[in-house]
C-alpha cells in the first residue's frame, strides 16, 4: 500500500501544479485468480454428449473421477482513477497502470476533461480526512499466496462429491475466484488512506436427469477467507437439483404467500431495494422513498442496517472509495425508514455527512476505471427466527421459491414491480413441500412485499454487498 500512497501523492502534487482546484487519486491493485472446472460430462448417464458423433469426449466410465475441463486464469491488474475539479466542473480519467509517467498523463487528461464541462452548482468539495470508526478489511494469507494446485483440487473434489451424491447427476461445474486487493485514496484535502483485503467466491451448478426430464440447480458462497471444505455445499447443490425432478405444473394460478430462499430473496432485494435508498436517486426523484424518512415502509419487525464495519462483510474496508470512513447506518428500524445512503457529493447537497457508501466496484470493468457511485457496504437484513423448513411449515398452502431467479434485471426499480422466472420452485401443501414446479413466473411488487412480510428466517447468508436470510411474504402471483 505504501507504494500506491507514494505515487498517489506525487500525482496529487502534479495536479496542484496544473492549477486545478481539487484532485483525487484512486489507486488500485488486485491479484486475481479464477478457476472454472467442468467436472464429468457423463456420457453413460445420458448427459450432454448425445448425438455428438463422438467427436469430443470418449468417456467409458460412468463417473470420471478427478478429471474434467479446467479453465484457470490469474494475473495482476493495477490502475488509477483520477477526479479533478476546475471551477466546480469535474473531470475523470483512468489508466490501467501505476507507472508514474502514465499517471501524470492521466492527471492532465482529467484536467482537459474538466475544462469542457459546465460547472456543477451542487458541487461543494472533495471529502476531508476523518477519524476511522470501523475496521480494516480481512486479508487472508492463504488467498494472498494462493496455491493453484490445491485450489483446483478443491474444485475437482467438490465436483466429485456433487456427482457421487446421486446417479441422476449428469454434470457438476464449479467456478471459483480468489482476489487479493489493495487500494489507496489521496486527495488535495489531505486524505491519504488505503486498505487491503481478500475475497473468495464459489459458484456451483449441477444438472440432473431422469427419463426425459433435465433439471439444474446452482448456489454460491462468498467469504473474506479461503474456504477449505466445500463438501456440504456441493452435496446441497446436488440435493437441490435432485429434489427438482418430477416437476408438475401448478393446478391453478397462486396468489398468496411465497417463501423465498435467501439467494432468491437477495436477488430481488439487491436489484430493486438497493437503488431506492441511494440518496442521489432520492434527490433526483428516482426513488419511491423520497420524503418517507420516519414513515412505516415495511412490516414492523423488519430491521435493515448498512454496516461497513462488519468484520466478515464483503464490503468492509476502513474507508470507502473516496476515503470516507465506513460506518454503521440504520436503514429500517421497526419497519420505519431511518436513513438513505450517501457519498460525499450527495451528502454535501443536503448539508449532511457522507455515510461512507462511495463505491467503484462494477465488474467486469476494473474498479479504478469507474467513477464512485452510491452502493451499500454490507446491507444486512437482521435475522429473526427459523430456517427455510420452519418458514415453509408456517404456511398451510403456498409456494417455495429456491435458487437463482431468471430475469431479475427486467424489474422496475422505480415502481418495485417484478416478474421473474423461477426454475427451482415447489408447491407447499399442509406446511410441507409437496412437489417441484415446472418453470414458473413469480410476480409481485417488492415495496409492497416489504409491508406484507410473514416471516424473516435466521439462515443469513452473504451475497457480496447484501447479507440476508430467507423471507416469506404475502400477495405474490405464481403461475406455471
Amino acid at each position, binding site marked *: 500500500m505504501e507504494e500506491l500512497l507514494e505515487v498517489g501523492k506525487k500525482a496529487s502534487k502534479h495536479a496542484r501544479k496544473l492549477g486545478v482546484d481539487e484532485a483525487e487519486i484512486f489507486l488500485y491493485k488486485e491479484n486475481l485468480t479464477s478457476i472454472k*472446472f*467442468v467436472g464429468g*460430462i457423463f456420457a453413460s448417464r445420458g448427459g*450432454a*454428449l*448425445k*448425438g*455428438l*458423433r463422438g*467427436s*469430443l*469426449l470418449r*468417456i467409458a466410465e460412468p463417473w*470420471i473421477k*478427478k*478429471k*474434467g*475441463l*479446467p*479453465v*484457470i*486464469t*490469474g*494475473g*495482476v*491488474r*493495477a*490502475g488509477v482513477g483520477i477526479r479533478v475539479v476546475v471551477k466546480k466542473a469535474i*473531470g*475523470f*480519467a*483512468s*489508466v*490501467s*497502470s*501505476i*507507472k508514474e509517467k*502514465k499517471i501524470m498523463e*492521466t492527471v492532465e*487528461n*482529467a484536467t*482537459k*476533461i474538466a475544462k*469542457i*464541462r*459546465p460547472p456543477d452548482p451542487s458541487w461543494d468539495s472533495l471529502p476531508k480526512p476523518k477519524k476511522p470508526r470501523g475496521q480494516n478489511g480481512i486479508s487472508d494469507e492463504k488467498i494472498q499466496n494462493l496455491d*493453484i*494446485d490445491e485450489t*483446483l483440487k478443491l474444485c*475437482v473434489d467438490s465436483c466429485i462429491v456433487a456427482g457421487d451424491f446421486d446417479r441422476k447427476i449428469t454434470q457438476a461445474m464449479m467456478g471459483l475466484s480468489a482476489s487479493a486487493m489493495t487500494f489507496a485514496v489521496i486527495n488535495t484535502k489531505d486524505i491519504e488512506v488505503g486498505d487491503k483485503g481478500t475475497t473468495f467466491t464459489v459458484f456451483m451448478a449441477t444438472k440432473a436427469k431422469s427419463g426425459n426430464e433435465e433439471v439444474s440447480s446452482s448456489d454460491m458462497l462468498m467469504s473474506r477467507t479461503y474456504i477449505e471444505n466445500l463438501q456440504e455445499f456441493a452435496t446441497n447443490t446436488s440435493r437441490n437439483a435432485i429434489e427438482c425432478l418430477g416437476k408438475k405444473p401448478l393446478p391453478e394460478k397462486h396468489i398468496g404467500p411465497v417463501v423465498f430462499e435467501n439467494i432468491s430473496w437477495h436477488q430481488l432485494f439487491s436489484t430493486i431495494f438497493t437503488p431506492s435508498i441511494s440518496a442521489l436517486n432520492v434527490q433526483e426523484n428516482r426513488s419511491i422513498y423520497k420524503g418517507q424518512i420516519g414513515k412505516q415502509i415495511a412490516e414492523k419487525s423488519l430491521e435493515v442496517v448498512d454496516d461497513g464495519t462488519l468484520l466478515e462483510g464483503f464490503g468492509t474496508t476502513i474507508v470507502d472509495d473516496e476515503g470516507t470512513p465506513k460506518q454503521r447506518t440504520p436503514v429500517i428500524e421497526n419497519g420505519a425508514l431511518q436513513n438513505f445512503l450517501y457519498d460525499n457529493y450527495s451528502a454535501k447537497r443536503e448539508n449532511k455527512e457522507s455515510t461512507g457508501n462511495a463505491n467503484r466496484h462494477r*465488474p*467486469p470493468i476494473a474498479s479504478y*476505471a469507474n*467513477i464512485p457511485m452510491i452502493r451499500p457496504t454490507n446491507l444486512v437484513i437482521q435475522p429473526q427466527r427459523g430456517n427455510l423448513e420452519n418458514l415453509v411449515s408456517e404456511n398451510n398452502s403456498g409456494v417455495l421459491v429456491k435458487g437463482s431467479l*431468471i*430475469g431479475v434485471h427486467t424489474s422496475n426499480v422505480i415502481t418495485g414491480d417484478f*416478474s421473474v422466472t423461477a426454475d427451482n420452485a415447489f408447491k407447499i401443501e399442509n406446511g410441507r413441500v409437496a412437489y417441484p414446479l415446472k418453470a414458473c413466473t413469480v410476480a409481485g411488487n417488492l415495496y409492497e412485499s416489504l409491508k406484507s412480510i410473514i416471516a424473516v428466517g435466521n439462515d443469513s447468508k452473504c451475497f457480496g454487498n447484501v447479507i440476508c436470510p430467507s423471507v416469506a411474504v404475502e400477495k405474490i402471483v405464481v403461475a406455471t
Partner: protein
Amino acid sequence: MSLQIKELADKAVKHASKIGVDFAEIKSEESVTRNIEAVNEEIRTVSESNNIGIGIRVFNGKGVGFSFSNILDKEHIFQAVERALKIAKTSKRRTLMNLKLAAVDPRTETKITNVKNHPRNASLDEKKDLCLRECKTALRESKRIANTLSRFGEYHGTIYYSNSEGTEVSHQPLLTGLTISCVAKKGASIVDARDSYGGSYGLDLFKKEHSPEKMGENAAKWALEKLEAKPAPAGKFEALIDPRLAGVLAHESFGHLSEGDTVAIGASPLAGRIGQKLGTEIVTIVDEGRPREGGYSMPFDDEGVPCKRVEILKDGVLKCYLQNRVTAQRLKMEPTGNARSQDYSFEPIVRMRNTFFNVGDWSPEEALRELKRGIYALDSAGGQVDLTGTFLFKAIRGYWVEGGELKYPLLDVALTGNILELLKNINAVCNNLELFSSPFGGCGKMEQRAFVGLGGPHIRVKDVLFGGTS
C-alpha cells in the same frame, strides 16, 4: 503501440519457449475509451479510460494456462509467463480433453486504420457538441419531450499479437457511437424512444443521415408517436422485422448456437447438423470481420488468425460453425478467426464479430405491401435466449399492419419463439442490409464483453408469437 511494449512482448515469448512451453502467445493492448453524456442540454459525465497491458497464454502438453499483467516491466511480465506455465501444468493433470491448436500458417502483418476525422485527433469540444446538438433538436420537437439523454462513445487503440510459431500481427481497432433516448409525457402516460448509430468510423459518420440532428429528431418523433400508441394484440401474426431487430435475432438467438465451444461440448442444438436444411432457401446468415456495410471492423482475431467471412447458414443450409484454433482442431474444421477476448486480461474464447442476415431480393416496400395483417416490429431492448434457441425479445417500436399499410403505432411488443422454427417461417428477405455497432456495452459471454456488429435487411416471418403488452 509503444516500441517498449512490443519489445517486452517479444522477450516474453522467448522466455516462455526457454522455460518449456509448447506454445506461447501474447496479446498486448494499448487503448482508450471515452464517454460523454448529456442530459437535456447539459453535459453530465465525461470520462476517459486508458487500457494498457499484456495477456499471455501458454500450452504445455494438453494443459493450457493464461495470465496477464498491466505492470509493464520485465520482472512482472516474466512472472506472468511463469504463472501461465504453472497454471498449464496444474490444468494438465486434471484435463480430460486433449486441447490442441489447429494449424495455421505463421503470418506477419500490420494493419493501419485510416479514417477521416479519427476521434483520437478530434477535440473534446467537437464530441461534446454532438451530444448537445442531439438533445437540442429533440427538445425542440415538442413541449411533450420531458427528458433527453445523449451519449457519445469512442474506443480505439492498437493490438499487437505475437506467438512462438512466428506470427506477428497488429491492428488498430476503432469504434465510435452516438445515441439518444427521449422521454415523452402526456397526462399520466410516459413513453420513451431512442435512436443510435455506430461503427468503425471517424466522426464524419455523424455528418449526413446519422447526424445528431437527424437522430434527435427521430427519437423525439418516435417517442411522440408512442404517446398515441395502442397495446399490441397477443397471438400469432405475420411480422415484418426491421434490420436492427433482425440483427438481434441473428446474433442472440442464432449466432450463439453456432459458436464452436458450445457446439464442441454438444450443448448447442446445431451440433452434428452440418449440411442440414434449417431455414427457408432465402435465408443466409453471415459472421464477418470486416463487412463493407459497417459494424465493428477487425482484420485478425485474438489468436492472430485472419477474420474470415463465414456463411454459417447458406440458402437455408447449415454450413459452418464459428471457430477458434482449439475448437477447430476438436471439430476438425478450419479456424475462422473468431477467437476474442475482452481485453488483455481475459483469455480468448469463441465470439461473434459482425453477425447478420444477408440480403435478399425483396424491396422493403414490397415486403410490407404484401403483409395482409400483422405487425411491423422494430429495434430491440434486449431479451432472453437459451441454448435451445428459445428467445424472448422486446421490440421497442411497432405498428399494426393491415392490407400492406401501417395502421397505428404499438407500445412495446414482446416476441417469443424458437429461432430454429422462425428460420423455417421466413418468407421474405429484403435488399437493404444495414449493420450496427455500439461502444456502449456489447455482447456478454462468460463474464467477458466484446464489441460486435449486427444487423440485416428487413425480413418477413409468418406465425410469430407476440406476447401483447406484458
